[in-house]
């Protein structure tokens, strides 16, 4: 119902612009909204991921989504689902739940044992990838699930239902930050100190893991499993090179994420390569997600050059 309303609103917006311009195309408008929403959440939690050394963890979560998809496909097949849209409705909750369970298990095992967290994450990572690989042939059957769009995503394939989910994701992220940002960051420096300041350290950690699993899984249509971690980590690392305090770091990360999102979306629309070997020179579109990531990596290197003088001032 909400998504039907959004469809209507977007097409009304499209009609305000001349035919075949950027804002006249409903998929471009949806894609732009999607990168804005994804940029907002990734930017908002990016500094937390980096500050808490969770880059590998979030990467593992993204890859575990692969096993989540495989599990979802398996369940949907066993349940006898054939219709593609219905299929996705089935897979999504299974994926999200799987991601949350794996994330919490990693945290739990790390707490219970003395193993280095890299090791624990690595083991779960391997298990999930193995499980996904077993079912690869099943999953990769195009009529069920497009594995390519899962790996790399594409903003212009985002549906209105996706957008609504992303909108609620932004809300959830906002609530988490409002209630737990201070506590979570403090606990990452020293749990004993945080406990002595009345912080519920475990609750913060587990809540953040759940949020991260939601972010990773719900952003897959927009940026894909292989690229989502770049959006979580690279802009925050760039901002850390440029900023002089944590307040600046937060807003600078959000700003960078939004900027590379919009720029990637715009560039993938305005640049087309022509494949000369194909009949009548078929146009090839560039992947929006890939442009965003490459752009943010370029900005990172730039920040390494200008950062020191900026921070010294």
């Amino acid at each position, binding site marked *: 119902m909400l998504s039907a309303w959004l469809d209507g609103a977007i097409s009304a917006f499209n009609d305000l612009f001349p035919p075949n311009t950027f804002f006249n195309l409903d998929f471009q408008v949806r894609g732009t909204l999607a990168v804005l929403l994804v940029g907002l959440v990734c930017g908002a939690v990016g500094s937390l991921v*980096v*500050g*808490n*050394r969770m880059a590998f963890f979030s990467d593992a979560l993204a890859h575990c989504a692969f096993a989540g998809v495989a599990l979802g496909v398996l369940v949907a097949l066993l349940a006898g689902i054939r219709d593609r849209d219905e299929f996705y409705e089935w897979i999504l909750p299974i994926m999200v739940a799987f991601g949350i369970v794996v994330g919490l298990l990693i945290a739990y095992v790390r707490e219970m*044992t*003395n193993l280095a967290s890299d090791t624990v994450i690595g083991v779960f990572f391997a298990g999930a990838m193995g499980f996904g690989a077993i079912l690869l042939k099943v999953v990769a059957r195009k009529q069920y699930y497009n594995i390519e769009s899962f790996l790399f995503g594409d903003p212009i394939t985002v549906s209105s239902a996706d957008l609504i989910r992303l909108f609620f994701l932004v809300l959830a992220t906002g609530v988490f*930050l*409002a209630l737990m*940002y*201070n506590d979570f*960051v*403090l606990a*990452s*420096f*020293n*749990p*004993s*100190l945080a*406990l*002595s*300041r*009345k912080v519920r350290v475990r609750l913060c950690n587990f809540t953040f893991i759940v949020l991260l699993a939601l972010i990773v899984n719900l952003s897959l249509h927009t940026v894909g499993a292989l690229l989502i971690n770049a959006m979580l980590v690279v802009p925050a*690392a760039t901002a*850390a*090179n440029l*900023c*002089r*305090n*944590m*307040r*600046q*770091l*937060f*807003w600078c990360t959000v700003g960078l994420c939004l900027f590379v999102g919009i720029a990637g979306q715009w560039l993938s629309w305005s640049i087309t390569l022509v494949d000369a070997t194909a009949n009548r020179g078929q146009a090839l579109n560039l992947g929006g997600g890939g442009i965003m990531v490459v752009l943010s990596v370029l900005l990172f290197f730039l920040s390494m050059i200008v950062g020191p003088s900026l*921070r010294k001032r």
Partner: protein
Amino acid sequence: MTTPLVSIRDLHVELGGRSVLDGVDAELKRGQITALIGWNGSGKTTLLRALVKEVPYRGRIEFHCGHDHRRPTPEHVGYVPQKLRVEANLPLTVADLLGLALLRWWPLFLGIGRRARQRMEQLLARVWLGSEFLDRPVEKLSGGELQRVLLALALEPHPELLLLDEPAAGIDFQHAEKFYELLADLNRRTGVTILLVSHELSVVNRHAHHVLCLTDGRVQCQGPPQEMLTQDAILRTFGSGSGLYGHHHD
């Protein structure tokens, strides 16, 4: 003046399947500085972590503060950790650190208001630091300065008990001495009870009222520093040839 603020009875802590604290009995007397000494790995940090209820334990820890509390709160216990684990390159300033701990229902990224900043300046003044420190990056502080910032934080809002875990480890002698003088001064002026993990027996001798020696998770001996720090007691706690006067590095 010498009623206990905290009584610890038959405290057992197991971590990773092995016993770290094995029946600790101790009392922290109100208004006194108690020094906790012992080898690395003897369980000193674990005892502090049990006091802030970070690790599960068997036995009893009773705070006689007149408040009912299951979790430690900043009103009762101020904890000065040994170090902070700040990711390299994270632009954390002193004001950020204080803000993260002190601002309630106000996420730090919304900014630090003028009144909060003034309060932070007052906190720093308590530990003899000027307001120019607020905008310094935490990673650029010297060991002694960081310990004083952490102490300033622990002192808000005037807890009855301060826990300090080797506050002077890695600080040069002069700054360590200044830090201990600050602690002794706070103890005299405000009557705050202090539990101090320290390796420096000279410091213990000068500033502590009471000494607890921990060996293999038990209190092996305790008493006033003049009695405790005889050659004999040191040998029993640290083993022979330890030469632990002055500085000890992990």
